[in-house]
């Protein structure tokens, strides 16, 4: 991994270890040797690339939602693999204006380095949001509104989002291609069938589809892949003074967890032993039993 924080560069992997774990198939001398078999990360990667290519082939106007977190960074990496180096659609950052400074620095640097067509869209003020939601959920719901604005502005018919089934119960029920209503809402009771990697890609006029290329990944998969592929991360994920962020959201509604993990190997070891959910530091998940579900039905990620 590259780090924005130069002090942490000591945690970079030795290049030999990276080479060993690289996705590049090994060269077999002679023709009779068996093809390189795929490991777990290879399988995840191949499936995600397949999904991204299906989305690009079947939708007219795509954007990738870049939240700057570890998941969407992996997703951008996968998109670059899928399309041979350059992401052929915009990366959309719906900006609450309340992210950590490290996140903005990351965006500004890698938006350029990765040659992204970066579109930053602001969110509406808090007053424009459903006042019956609990405070943190209401704050997060601004992002849903910002997303609606961006959808109207650009007319995207597909949004690629980096959610995962293992994050949260309602996300576990998502489809890979998930149709949204005209208001961006998710009708969880009437999801179309989806099987054999055949996706429902028909979008009614004015509505859009969410595409979830890393739905089948876990938190540990994300880290293991980030390490293998040497994908840059925001240093907030690494332990500083006994705490680190497992999940990054707005500054005011995201809390760090107690941790001594100061590199990816240590994060992986820590995940192996934890019983604390990934989104434990996300206030909005815990306000009421169904706050998160209500957000998602309204179009939250």
């Amino acid at each position, binding site marked *: 991994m590259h780090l924005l924080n130069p002090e942490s560069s000591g945690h970079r992997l030795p290049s030999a270890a990276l080479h060993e774990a690289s996705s590049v*198939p*090994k*060269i*077999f001398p002679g*023709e009779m040797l*068996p*093809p*390189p*078999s*795929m*490991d*777990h990360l290879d*399988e995840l990667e*191949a499936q995600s*690339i*397949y999904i991204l*290519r*299906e989305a*690009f*082939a079947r939708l*007219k106007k795509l954007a990738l939602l870049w939240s700057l977190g570890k998941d969407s960074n992996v997703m951008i990496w996968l998109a*670059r*693999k*899928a*399309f*041979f*180096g*350059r992401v052929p659609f915009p990366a959309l950052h719906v900006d609450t204006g309340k992210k950590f400074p490290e996140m903005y620095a990351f965006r500004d640097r890698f938006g350029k380095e990765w040659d992204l067509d970066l579109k930053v869209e602001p969110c509406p003020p808090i007053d424009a949001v459903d006042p019956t939601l609990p405070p943190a959920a209401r704050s997060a719901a601004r992002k849903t509104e910002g997303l609606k604005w961006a959808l109207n502005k650009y007319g995207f018919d597909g949004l690629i989002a980096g959610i995962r089934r*293992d994050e*949260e*119960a*309602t996300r*576990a029920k998502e489809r890979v291609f998930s149709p949204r209503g005209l208001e961006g809402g998710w009708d*969880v009771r009437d*999801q*179309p*069938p*989806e*099987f*054999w990697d*055949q996706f*429902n*890609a*028909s979008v009614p006029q004015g509505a859009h589809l969410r595409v979830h290329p890393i739905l089948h990944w876990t938190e*540990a998969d994300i880290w*293991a*892949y980030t390490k293998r592929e040497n994908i840059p991360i925001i240093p907030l994920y690494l332990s500083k003074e006994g705490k680190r962020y497992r999940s990054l959201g707005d500054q005011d509604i995201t809390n760090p967890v107690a941790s001594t993990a100061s590199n990816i190997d240590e994060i992986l*070891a820590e*995940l*192996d*032993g*934890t*019983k*604390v*959910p990934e*989104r434990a530091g996300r206030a909005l*998940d815990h306000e009421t*039993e*169904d706050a998160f*579900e209500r957000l998602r039905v309204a179009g939250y990620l």
Partner: protein
Amino acid sequence: MNMILPASVSATPNGTTRPQVRIVIVGHVDHGKSTLVGRLLHETGSLPEGKLEMLKAVSARRGMPFEWSFLLDALQTERDQGITIDTTQIRFRTRSRDVVLIDAPGHAEFLRNMITGASQADGAVLIIDALEGVRDQTRRHGYLLHLLGIKQVAIVVNKMDRVDFGADRFKEISDEISAHLIGLGVTPSAIIPISARDGDGVAEHTPRIGWYQGPTVVEALDALEPARPLEQLALRLPVQAIYKFDDRRIVAGRIESGHLAAGDEIVIMPAGKIAKIKTVESWPVTPLKGSHGAGRSVGITLDRELFIERGDVIAHAGATPRDTRRIRARIFWLHDKPLSKGDQILIRLGTRETRASVVAIEKAVDPGELSNEETKAIARNHVGEIDISLAQPIAADPYQENPRTGRLVIEVNGRIAGGGLVLSVDAGQRAVPIDIVPVESALRPEERSARYHHNGAVIWLTGLPGSGKSTLARALERRLFSRGGSPILLDGDTLRAGLNNDLGFSPQDRSENIRRLAEVATHLARNGHVAIVAAVSPAIADRAAARRIADTMFREVHVAAPAEVCESRDPKGHYAKARSGALPSFTGITNDYQPPTACELRIDTSIRSVADATEEIERMLGETGILFDELVDLAANI
């Protein structure tokens, strides 16, 4: 799901050291699927901190006794109704492997969700209530496991506490379900008596089921094997897309079976074109050496430029899939409206999509019923065998030969409505209904070409409104006619005035308009004429369809001119109307014209004279074998 489980998440990529197996739990509603999952998590020490206490508190607040199933039924609606609506996935570890448990709803109303969940599984656990026994949904799920191609099935007879752990009742149910499954060609790997609520038989044998000697549920899960990649089968690479992001022309797709390497001789089906793989491209390192096997998403370049499109299947010479317009399939149906003979549907097989019609329906039954009474249409949640006739040829395999290219889904109104297995394909058979026998022309093609000095062709002029298609088409018509040929002009609007007056301007209608244009033009071309088609034809897919119809007689000419130039010409006044909002789906302004990426000729009419451009088309027709002999002389006289 919302649990980070200590044992569930393998911190190291588990594929390198531990197999990952995906298991779906199916069965009749209320037979205890979610309870079993909750219990399994508890028994394997996989519950997250505080989860059990939280759920107990939720139960108490709602005045309900604690249920293990609350662990999974996390959605509000499911807690209220007490049933699983959609699939949920949970991970945990057993001694030897990582397990992804897929909990699928048992309610008949949610069969589409059960299928969505089960289709991702390597193996299945079919759960049966010891008191209620085998029910309709038990049988239906058993049948669907067969249709989904899931061969490893363990049976769990739950709620044994309700029948006093009676071995007789257990045997009764074992015999009934075994007979049902074996009849479908599925042999259960184990039949296990349990009480999910109390834990008997889940992770350990208890005295109450002392008479049972077989494996526990956890042991049975340990014995299920992860699905093997299909590397041993013949190469099948369905084409997802052709990318031209730089000077490489990359054919992208996922290898569904077999393997490939640079240098391989390949055949592109269904057209049967032959090429050689030049390179296997990747990023950040490219090109890749070596062999690439089933499951990989790859990009390849070929040693020659040929027409290849999304939906084609790449195979090795000598081991190609069949090309067909007729397929027989065994399907399950999920749509509200029953599937009937004569229905128009959309088929997806691999990455190909094609319109099709249902020619015949047989063996339509409700797999939940024992009677197997056959019906004429396939109702919702029922199964049956269908013969389908496809609008265009497709590359396919029977499912026994290749499970990946031997299965298809059916779409109705843009939504997946069913799916199933390809039982047989009729190679190369044209989709002509049985009663139709087209009368062959009395003339031989040579007789016509000797008179006209040209072969039949479809010259397809595509471009923005105002780009000069009609002008060029008329000039070309005049030119060919004066050299003794037989050109026929088909303007995009010619057919719309009569034959196509049932069509509007929606994408579907535009496609159909193009298809009919192409069919008429091809008929003319087969009879020796040069059909000159001038049509905006904005969609690349529609033009590709036209090319398939006219095949080797097709010559695509992109009449290109900058959009501003086209708008300033505005010969039909359409741009002006569109700008004023009177023509909502007008191609020139909405920017939905997709220029050709590979056509026979591209002419920029903003810098070429009409005579010049016409001559260039003529030259192209000469060079590609449509015009002959006099062409050289004619060109010399200009």
